[in-house]
């Protein structure tokens, strides 16, 4: 018995010692040996980086991009802010002016800023831009090799501040490759890479930087990266806007969403990239300094990305637009929005994200057309648009969210969108019947007599908000007599989406600049020339595998006009009308990112009231935030 007691005591002592020893410490969630008032801590949504010491962003998928590398260290010719920008959405960054094309868009001339320096003291010149192109064309395994080799016949640097791109064929949008919307082709330091034998296998550690920060330290296990403000920050393109507030930036992997919430409540994570709606509600309630893009509901930052139901239009049952419209008319978007975002989202009936410049360029000007838009079901003509849906959503939310829900119509439109398609089971049934479908024992049968089944692919836990939306839509389709099922493709989505191995999936194929009206960013890849045969890998974005002669005409017309040509908006409206009629995808809402900003240590974050930049931490554009941040008192 004596030995037993001794053992119990020892066990108790071990436990007590471990807790006591730990209890004397503070929570260790912030970088050590750096004054907190000089440090901004941001989430790197890439998580833990396997290849932590790799900083060569020009190699394909080899290391991290959003560990601060593209936000704080690298630079390129132009930026377009998805919001309003500090000095307008367009920013000439390394370039001194907008690109100049010749008449047939086969040559692009760029004037560069002078007086900008790499972090090792070497001056940035046109030779760096030329090397960025030449090196990647010479080494076909690099990230931008293919796009540059396909477009560029030659690049010249006649003097230190001029670059002339000779293109292989007309391309009025070639400059967009060097224009940041999240990322772009970043300029590499010629004086470093020209000494490297194989640039695709060069780790670029320690990176020589061109933007205002340089690498301070990083975790070999890939959990954190710390960047330090350069002493010569004035000699960078960001220096035009003043001295960045934080001397240090830490991009960290804070772990799953619940830990991000805890970290911000403990003031150990200043900017969360994204969390669940519930996490955001908790922070808004309990985090004294936390807030989202909107001060109150719906909190989240609407990305210039349109979430929707994307059909595989090569699927026999989904080739007919009547079927696609019938599926749209069985959806109650209010229930979908509540299921996905607990109501905290901005809806869109048309295939353009309701964010950035688009509500002014497309949604509001086209509201009259959408209201008058008619569908002939064969038995009746209906006007499916209900302009009051956003207002109905606010009415649903007000009892639980109270004063956070706006009452002013303009504010409702800005936060929640305008209208959407009215649920109309009768019209949906008539459309299905016209398509040859028959109802049998409350179950829709296809024209060849089989049950009408549709698998809606979702990403599961990897994208919970979209999974919730998909689950609600499947439930609504099943109630309408369609054999709909959730198809979880957790981890396999990218492969299956490219191969067209789905009936429909919930995600996005429409992404825009946000701060610019041009729609070519996503639309150019929707040309029929790029639609793959069933089973073959589909190139970028046209996941619906949909083509239409009218769409080809619009795309080809956009290719022939300048990026800023006002005709672009008119062509964009033609696209909206065509896609609305054909419904290859059902637009739902903007993809809201619940970026939570803690004002305990820093103030001046971009918000809906002061939308000077995109705060979402992994966007290259988020760098503009640094120059507006001030230490809190």
């Amino acid at each position: 018995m004596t030995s037993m007691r001794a053992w119990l005591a020892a066990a108790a002592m071990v436990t007590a010692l471990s807790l006591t020893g730990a209890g004397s410490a503070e929570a260790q969630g912030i970088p050590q040996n750096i004054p907190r008032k000089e440090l901004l801590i941001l989430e790197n949504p890439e998580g833990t980086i396997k290849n932590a010491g790799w900083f060569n962003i020009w190699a394909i998928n080899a290391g991290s991009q959003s560990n601060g590398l593209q936000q704080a260290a690298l630079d390129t010719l132009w930026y377009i802010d998805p919001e309003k920008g500090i000095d307008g959405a367009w920013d000439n960054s390394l370039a001194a002016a907008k690109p100049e094309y010749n008449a047939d868009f086969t040559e692009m001339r760029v004037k560069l800023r002078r007086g900008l320096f790499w972090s090792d003291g070497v001056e940035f010149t046109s030779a760096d831009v030329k090397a960025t192109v030449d090196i990647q064309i010479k080494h076909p395994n690099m990230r931008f090799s293919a796009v540059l080799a396909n477009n560029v016949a030659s690049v010249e640097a006649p003097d230190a501040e001029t670059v002339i791109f000779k293109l292989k064929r007309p391309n009025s949008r070639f400059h967009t490759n060097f224009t940041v919307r999240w990322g772009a082709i970043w300029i590499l330091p010629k004086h470093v890479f020209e000494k490297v034998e194989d640039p695709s296998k060069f780790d670029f550690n320690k990176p020589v930087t061109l933007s205002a920060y340089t690498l301070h330290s990083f975790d070999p296990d890939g959990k954190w990266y710390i960047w330090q403000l350069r002493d010569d920050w004035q000699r960078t393109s960001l220096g035009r806007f003043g001295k960045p507030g934080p001397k240090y930036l830490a991009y960290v992997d804070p772990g799953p969403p619940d830990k991000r919430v805890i970290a911000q409540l403990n003031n150990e994570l200043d900017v969360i990239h994204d969390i669940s709606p519930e996490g955001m509600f908790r922070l808004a309630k309990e985090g004294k300094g936390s807030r989202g893009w909107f001060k109150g509901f719906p909190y989240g930052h609407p990305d210039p990305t349109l979430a929707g139901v994307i059909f595989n239009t090569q699927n026999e049952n989904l080739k007919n637009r009547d079927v696609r419209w019938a599926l749209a008319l069985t959806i109650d978007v209010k229930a979908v929005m509540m299921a996905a975002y607990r109501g905290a989202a901005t809806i869109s009936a048309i295939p353009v994200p309701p964010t950035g410049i688009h509500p002014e360029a497309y949604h509001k000007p086209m509201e009259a057309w959408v209201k008058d838009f008619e569908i002939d079901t064969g038995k009746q003509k209906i006007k499916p648009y209900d302009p009051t849906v956003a207002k109905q959503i606010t009415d649903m939310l007000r009892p639980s969210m109270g004063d956070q829900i706006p009452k002013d119509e303009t504010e409702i439109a800005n936060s929640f969108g305008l209208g959407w398609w009215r649920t109309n089971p009768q019209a949906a049934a008539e459309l299905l019947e016209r398509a040859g479908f028959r109802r049998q024992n409350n179950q829709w049968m296809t024209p060849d007599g089989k049950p009408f089944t549709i698998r809606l692919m979702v990403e599961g836990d990897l994208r919970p908000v979209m999974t919730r939306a998909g689950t609600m839509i499947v439930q609504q389709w099943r109630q309408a007599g369609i054999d709909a099922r959730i198809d979880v493709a957790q981890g396999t989505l990218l492969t299956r989406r490219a191969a067209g191995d789905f009936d429909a999936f919930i995600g996005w194929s429409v992404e825009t600049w946000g701060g610019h009206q041009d729609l070519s960013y996503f639309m150019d890849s929707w040309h029929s020339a790029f639609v793959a045969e069933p089973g073959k890998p589909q190139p970028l974005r046209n996941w619906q595998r949909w083509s239409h002669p009218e769409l080809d005409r619009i795309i080809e017309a956009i290719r022939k006009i300048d990026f800023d040509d006002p005709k672009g908006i008119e062509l964009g409206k033609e696209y909206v009308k065509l896609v609305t009629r054909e419904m290859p995808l059902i637009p739902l809402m903007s993809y809201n990112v619940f970026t939570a900003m803690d004002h305990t240590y820093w103030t001046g974050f971009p918000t809906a009231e002061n939308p000077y930049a995109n705060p979402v931490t992994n966007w290259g554009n988020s760098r503009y935030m640094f120059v507006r941040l001030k230490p809190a008192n």
Partner: protein
Amino acid sequence: MRAYFSYVCKRLAQFVLVVFIGINLTYIITHATPIDPVEQSISAVTAFGSTAPESIAEMRRSLQELYGLQGSWFEQYVSFWKRIVRADFGPSLSAFPAPVSSLIARALPWTLGLLVFATVVSWVLGNLLGGLAGYYRKNMGLKVVGVIAMGLHPVPYYIVALVLMIIFGFIWPVLPITGGSAMNLEHGWNWPFIVSVLKHSVLPALSLVLIGVGSWFLGMRSLVSNIVTEDHVVYAEVAGVDSRRILGSYVIRNALAPQVTGLAMSLGGIFNGAVITEKVFGYPGMGSLLVDGVYAGDYGLVLGVTTISIIGVSLGVLVIDLLYPLIDPRIQVPS
């Protein structure tokens, strides 16, 4: 001795066969995955860009060449075995061109440090307390320990981990809840780093120990409860042998044999990492590496981690099998 030598040879041959079959099965499973590493890489690269479709097609061709995915199935299989015998798992496809071996070398010490400690502590505590509880069946304190062990044992691991995290990371925030060490400390044999690593391992280790102890405790108590009724124990008690000697030499020693086998298998299995622990506590290690490899379709990485695990478990069992005939007189090598 000759019989034992023959036994060793047979077991070694079995070991090689098990490892060979295990690695082949892993090869087949990883290559049957619907995840295409080329598409994963392309999607990661182009998810946020406006790269033209014809450029994507070209990138696809380049990546297939770069990743060595060209050639027939048989050619790839032969090339795989050529590398394996040189202990070269090739490059990671999701962190190209970093070699898989370097990724594993970075993750393995974290996994070994945490899991060897947690496994051994759980085993020692669980078996000791279980042994005592089985022998001193009327002791109130040990009955309470038994109730706690039975209560904790069925609780899902992630619940225990989350509860610990919320208590010590949020309600009473005295312990770090993420990472393997504090940020901005130099990794190496320096005191601040060592202390930081120890602090960061407290919660992950505690969560593993709390769950692990229960399992060993219940197993050991049950074994001891049977042994104490056996003739040699009863005879010793009747003969007035000291109870500590009975417990140590006649009871626990006899009950330990299956527990030692369990320990060897547990130690062998730690090379897989503790996936949930690493995810919940953001702890660096083999588990996270394995999960990331699976999601990215990174054959090389998955094969590297699982091969080490297969060898670890097989080796653990082999060592125990070879030692048993030497340490336990009840086990005889067939002549």
